[in-house]
């Protein structure tokens, strides 16, 4: 049988009845790893939630005589600042991912610390964002969906920031398995998702109420 074509250079060896895999690597990055598929699954689920929440936003808007139902749209300052901060945080996250894939522990440690700081900063600004939305969740359906969208996204910020912190501490311990590099790589991938999914949410929460 054909056991030849693979994504990786190392191949299983056929010896009579045996297919010997002892020399294959014990971890792999990207779509080779189980973690990548698990992360992708979570991203698909959470992406669907975001898409549906945006759908709810426009559904409610289609019945409204004025939008926002409160007089003022969310203030732009903190939301925009946080969007820029989120985009900037891609840099340390990406550097951590590249260091991980090069199995460069020193680089991983450095960039993970920086990623953690960036994520905590984003969370801090998010608190300010909530304070300048110019609506309350219990004021109107408009306020409800704005808070829901922002709340959902904040939940993702929280979980990934926590995940990054735990990884940062772990990567500073001794006797690390190679697959911790895979964890770092997938953690960055998930952060990409948290950042990129924010852009349409930002456009909806901050942009749509200004369309009139």
């Amino acid at each position, binding site marked *: *049988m054909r*056991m030849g*074509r*693979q*994504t*990786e250079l*190392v*191949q*299983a060896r*056929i*010896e009579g*009845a*045996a*297919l*010997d*895999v*002892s*020399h*294959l*690597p*014990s*971890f*792999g*990055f990207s*779509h*080779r*790893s*189980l973690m990548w*598929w*698990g992360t992708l*699954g979570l991203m*698909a*689920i959470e992406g*669907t*939630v975001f898409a*549906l*929440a945006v759908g*709810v936003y426009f*559904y*409610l808007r289609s*019945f*409204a005589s004025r939008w926002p*139902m409160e007089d003022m749209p969310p203030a732009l300052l903190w939301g925009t600042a946080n969007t820029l901060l989120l985009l900037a945080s891609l840099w340390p996250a990406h550097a951590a991912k590249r260091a991980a894939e090069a199995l460069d522990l020193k680089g991983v440690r450095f960039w993970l610390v920086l990623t953690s700081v960036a994520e905590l900063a984003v969370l801090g600004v998010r608190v300010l964002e909530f304070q300048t939305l110019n609506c309350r*969740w*219990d004021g109107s*359906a*408009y*306020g*409800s*969906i704005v*808070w*829901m969208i922002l709340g959902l996204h904040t939940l993702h910020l929280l979980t990934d920031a*926590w995940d990054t912190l*735990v990884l940062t501490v*772990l990567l500073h311990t001794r*006797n690390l*398995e*190679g*697959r*911790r590099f895979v964890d770092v790589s997938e953690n960055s991938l998930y952060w990409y998702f948290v950042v990129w999914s924010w852009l349409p949410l930002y456009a909806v929460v901050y942009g749509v109420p200004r369309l009139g």
Partner: protein
Amino acid sequence: MSTQAPVLNDVPPTPRQVAQLHATWSDPPGPWGWLSAVNHKAIGRRFLVTAFGFFLAGGLLALWMRTQLARAENGLVGPDLYNQLFTMHGTTMMFLFAVPVMQAVSVYITPLMLGARSIAFPRMNAFAYWVYLFGGLMLFAAFLTNTGADAGWFAYPPLSGPDYSPGKRVDFWAQMITFTELSALLEAVILITTVFKLRAPGMTLNRLPLFVWGMLVTAFMVMFAMPAVMLASTSLITDRLVGTHFFNPGEGGDVLLWQHLFWFFGHPEVYLIFIPGLGFVSTIVATFARRPVFGYPAMVLALIATAFLAFGLWVHHMFATNLPELGKSFFTASSMLIAVPTAIQIFCWLATLAGGRVNLKAPLLFVLAFFFILVLGGLTGLMLASVPLDLQVHDSYFVVAHLHYVLLGGAVFPLLGAVLYWWPLITGRMTSERLGRWSFWLLFIGFNVTFFPMHLLGLEGMPRRVYTYPADRGWEGMNLLATVGAWVLAAGLLVFLFNLWRSWRRGERAGANPWGAGTLEWGSTCPPPAANFDATPVVHGAYPLWTPPREPSQVAGLAVDQREQLVTTVLDAVPDHRVSFPEPTPWPFLSALAVTLCFVWSLFTPWGAVYGLIPAAIGLTLWFWPRRRETAKHLAIERAPR
């Protein structure tokens, strides 16, 4: 750090290697070990027993209702309790039985069918089980303390909103959704990863068993359907608890929004239940016709087509609402269209049976019943898909008849057949063929006597969800008949369960592959040992056990003194790398307890959702944190990719 030389397996593995391998993959003994179990077979068995426990509970609620309806103006059950009974029945059957039981079978069977030693993310699998169990128990604990959900299994606002359902009943219902959907979503991710990455070498995607195709398609549907109901139930619970206005028209909300979100999940959900049933049918038909299923590519494409179409049907549950007529026509058309892939599969199975040497055993009887009942249910489905007819019978017993024909015929009959079929694989013992046939006929007759009259009752105008009816309507005879049928159905289920119990206690020992099946789950012993196979098999055909032996036959060079699993490529299942799997741990159980605390606490104060997160985060972190001993073992066989 001490590193011992790892012990790798030979082909064929020596008896000593085999013993060590299975000891390595065993769950620890004792009660604490029981709570720490991560083996997919142990979790699968628990999942199955729990789901059948909820099935029995839901069935008892149904019997209670049927007994109340046996006579006109009966006083056994009052309206308030009746509301709880039908809500709990529907909720239990849909959320706590039908979807989880399919995932339960899959948790047990899929890794075996793929030739894997484990399911992917075994700890998360255990966590998903515990979360499901606790969510179900919470709902029933509420019911037993007179806080049972009472706004129907689809909980339409405004009835389910804060104004018309004060108290905690609907809150518990909505939070049960959070539990069960969390569990189902995790299981979907686990299953997709298992199917894509843990297949035995040589099991290319076009050799994937049809059952696994069915579960794979189902898992993808879960990922895109269930977020809708989670978002809906979260919005409902915030409307009820913190004063949001999603479904409050007074403040810009909309009640129909709920129906859209609910049915965007709810219609695919029917197929989440039905498509695994199709997988059971394909498996059983092939084994008992003793030949491969006719038209494999058509079967796979039909499953995928069904999944896509299932997302375009939800509005046919809303034909009685004020939506544009043109939109309704579209949904009528797509509802008609989905019959096509189902028909293709039915023709393929009939061709398989016609071209095979049929071995008419009890599991196949259940499949034949599936053909009969599902076709009837499908035909009433086509009737309901047309708007004028739907308006006439909307919310009547005609709909109750239709949905039970589809769900019991499409899913429960194949499921019961599959339980009989795979029972030897779970317990190592055969069931009694005679009791199997008795249970089949009682269930088949009982089912039709219960639900066929409901078509007529519906056409005569009897509405669903009424706790009683006046004597002068002329509905009494058929209601009595339906109640008699329900008791026959219950008797059939008792015989079925007695058969399982008897087999478990003193059934005849099953040898290897007792049905002469072709798929890999029968390629080990009955029941399979802890690591499933003595050595990972290499696959050379779609029905490996019907394929002549070829070399290479097994995988060599995987550790037997630690939990090592081969990972293969997505399309061609070429060996790619080896990965160390986690060991048993109580943290999934403890984390599920913490999450339960968070969810239940948040029903009483929103701060519960905040403070409750802290123990959950601690639990999940300790779960993830590597143990030194395990790390040392993994490092001993580590080899970095180039």
